[in-house]
């Protein structure tokens, strides 16, 4: 799947969640998403960026503009080298949280995108990749 453009956003502190929202919004507009689709991917990115910072001890978001045939999409990978998630299925369950959040981040983000992939190894880190197609 050809990648035509890439950008990396560092996720270190809570203010980086605001930065990543702004970058994702700009990209979503460039891809030509409708306002609703822009809102969905920006919201999903906001949830996942917060997870990377709060639970993964920081990391990065890698944005990629991808094409498949004639369709274009926005793919974003959130990567950290944090403690990892022992039970991914449990983490995906709505209202399950180990922090003080609402427990909607992972499951909610999954519902807002077309493709969602999570891989995590305890002690090594977590990688969540989301894709939204135009």
């Amino acid at each position: 799947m050809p990648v035509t453009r890439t950008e990396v956003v560092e996720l270190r502190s809570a203010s980086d969640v605001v930065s990543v929202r702004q970058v994702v919004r700009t990209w979503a507009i460039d891809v030509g998403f409708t306002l609703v689709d822009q809102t969905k991917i920006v919201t999903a990115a906001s949830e996942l960026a917060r997870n990377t910072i709060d639970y993964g001890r920081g990391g990065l978001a890698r944005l990629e503009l991808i094409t498949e045939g004639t369709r274009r999409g926005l793919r974003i990978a959130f990567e950290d080298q944090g403690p990892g998630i022992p039970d991914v299925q449990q983490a995906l369950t709505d209202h399950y949280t180990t922090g003080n959040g609402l427990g909607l981040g992972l499951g909610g983000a999954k519902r807002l995108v077309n493709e969602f992939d999570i891989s995590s190894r305890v002690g090594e880190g977590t990688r969540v990749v989301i894709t939204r197609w135009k």
Partner: protein
Amino acid sequence: MDRIPILRLRDLLLVTIQVDMHDRLAMQLQDELTTRISETGARGVLIDISSLDIVDSFIGRMIANIASMARVLDAQTVVVGMQPAVAITLVELGLTLPGVRTALNVDKGMALLQAAPAAAADQHDPDARHPD
């Protein structure tokens, strides 16, 4: 440093969130708003989110917290002006904002707040209007 102004309109407080919320600002707003409710004896809080282009679970939790704190201080909270794209996204995200009432705009939110506490407290307010 950013600050979210809190305006007093008779016995209501109006908060217009116009900046991209980050954690510190959200916590500061909770503190200031509860202090203002206590100081003014406000019976209602209107939170205008018409400028917010997303509401994620963090902002949603902050709004729900404000509503809970306000309720304990005998004030009701109405969230007004949610953009349609934000509403669609919130539902898919799974955020339900329990205990938070909503209205389409500030006018309707004010009408809702002025109708409810006045009736509950059995006070007569000559300016109170019912929502159309």
